[in-house]
């Protein structure tokens, strides 16, 4: 997946000299995960810029770059560091188009790895997506496959709206699938049916999609047919796509890495019960982390929902009745 992201950045920079990449360690080092490897050598220090370690001014100056006519791509090294820039993302990036009554478009992309499972030090692994989906004006996408990583990034960079582009830390090297060489886009706001099924709809995004697919495989051996939806985009949300699946299955499980309370799963539950109430055959369930801080690496496997837990919960859901 990391190669797909890097290839996309290179192609977009090649096609449009207004694209600049800024962030911590993105230049000579090529990013701590190598997402920008080789870009500075190709496009120069002016367009691939190692920034001082201050997330607030990284995002804040990115806003200024966008207003000057450039199309910045900002790398936040980890979403866990995003709080140092939260005032710029939440109150500034997301609102400046509105506050200037359309005068200032903000064609900027904030790329950031998030989620756990790779034994990082503390405060690197939280799945904070729900903070940002509660921020009108900001689009939030979270690809699960390498193909989508490339296509969604291209779409995000093409968009005149600011986009938070979340990359699965765990999927960077683990996720491997076919990626065309040529440039293409995957539209923002359209989910992907990762696996078709008839009995239960299992909704996930980012790294959790892989867990969902493996659980679905096991469940099929137990005779339960699971449809896995990869949301790809949290805002805009593909409500039509979700409704079509729920109309077919009548049972819904939502899987996310973030804690339960206030997680994006709650938003999905509310939306589905409103849109699909008469299709539902059982209460919707959420499979998530507990309502506790993200732990140290030695216990993170107990924190993030795994395949066994998803299988057990979906088996119970398949038997449940309204």
């Amino acid at each position: 997946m990391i190669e797909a992201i890097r290839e996309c950045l290179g192609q977009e920079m090649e096609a449009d000299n207004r694209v600049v990449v800024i962030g911590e360690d993105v230049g000579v080092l090529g990013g701590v995960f190598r997402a920008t490897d080789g870009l500075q050598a190709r496009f120069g220090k002016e367009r691939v810029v190692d920034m001082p370690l201050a997330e607030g001014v990284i995002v804040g100056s990115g806003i200024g770059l966008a207003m000057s006519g450039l199309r910045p791509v900002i790398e936040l090294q980890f979403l866990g560091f995003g709080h140092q820039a939260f005032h710029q993302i939440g109150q500034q990036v997301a609102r400046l188009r509105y506050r200037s009554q359309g005068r200032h478009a903000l064609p900027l992309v904030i790329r950031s790895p998030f989620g756990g499972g790779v034994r990082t030090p503390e405060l690197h692994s939280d799945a904070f997506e729900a903070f940002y989906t509660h921020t009108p004006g900001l689009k939030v996408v979270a690809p699960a496959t390498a193909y989508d990583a490339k296509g969604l990034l291209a779409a995000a960079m093409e968009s005149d709206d600011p986009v938070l582009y979340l990359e699965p830390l765990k999927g960077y090297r683990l996720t491997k699938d076919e990626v065309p060489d040529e440039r293409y886009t995957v539209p923002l706001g359209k989910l992907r049916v990762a696996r078709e099924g008839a009995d239960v709809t299992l909704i996930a995004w980012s790294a959790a999609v892989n867990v969902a697919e493996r659980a679905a495989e096991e469940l099929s051996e137990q005779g339960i047919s699971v449809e896995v939806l990869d949301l790809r985009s949290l805002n805009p949300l593909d409500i039509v796509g979700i409704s079509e699946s729920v109309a077919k299955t009548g049972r819904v499980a939502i899987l996310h890495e973030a804690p339960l309370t206030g997680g994006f799963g709650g938003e999905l539950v509310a939306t589905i019960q409103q849109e699909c109430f008469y299709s539902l055959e059982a209460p919707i369930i959420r499979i998530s982390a507990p309502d506790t801080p993200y732990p140290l690496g030695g216990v993170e496997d107990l924190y993030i929902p795994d395949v066994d837990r998803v299988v057990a919960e979906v088996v119970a859901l398949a038997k449940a009745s309204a």
Partner: protein
Amino acid sequence: MSESRFLPNFEPIAPFSRLTDSGILDSGESPMSDDAVLEALRYMMLTRVFDDKATSMQRQGRFGTFSSVRGQEASVVGAASALDPTKDWIVPQYREFPALIRHGYPIENFALYFMGNPKGGTIPPNVNMLPMQISLAAQIPQATGLAWGLKMQGGDGVVITFFGDGASSEGDFHESLNLAGIMKAPVIFFLQNNGWAISTPRENQTAARSFAERAIGYGVEGVMVDGNDLLAVHEVTKQAVAKARAGRGPTLIESVTYRTGAHNTADDPTRYIDQQELEKWQQKDPVERIKNYLRSRGIWNENLEQELLDSCAAQIDAAMEIARNTPLATSDALFDHVYAEPPQRMLDQKRDWANRNGDAR
């Protein structure tokens, strides 16, 4: 002490000034022509007329909470008058009315904004400014990035950003000076030290003896100027603009002035301001000071004053009339311009809100 391992304390610097408190120019040449001073004075008087009008309308419930410029007119106008509106940018806070108007932002938009109409936020396409910033210091990184971006694209535009002594305690200020120094961004950090952040005195913002000297820590040049001296503010800002335009990087200007009015119309400064100190600063009124300068030049008289006041009042009245006659915003104003490509869900909400609120469509 030469053997000390510690950096020396900096000698306190005195603010640069050109005029005495009574408006007499020093022995040097004026940095502004008489016409330029007259134009600047008109913006200062226009501001006072606007502030009085808006305050009285606010008391009658016809205008929202807003912050007057009172006491800081020379500071704001002196800085703005050093800019070229065709290529320079203003990244404001919220207490810079005359700078925005000189740059081309319509008075009626300014008024509409404070009347609570989102349309007031509209910045005409040829006006180089960002929206007013309410979140303290958040505009400073944006100004830095904007300046850096202009430079990267080979332009010679310069960005000035306004903020106060209070805002300079925010991380955004420090992060921005640091980045601007690294990138040699053509940005001017115009810090108006007006003595107060609502009720918090300047002493509670920093132990540094001046705000200007903070620039040193970021490899940026700092300068302290008498903010009630129009000529000095203009001169210093003009030099900073020329330096930035020539590619020689940012400047931090500390403009030492005093907020002789309230923080805003909701504030009661009698609870914390020392009356004697206030009166001392009222004696240094920047408008009177520049009028005295013009008197000393023999080009100011009662007739001219009345003429200018009348024309300012007419201009403000006309703008307020436009603002008053602007239709109230419909519920569409909640939704318009939030996105370039809005999510369907928000578009559905826009329709529902319009139906509920009975908009004609």
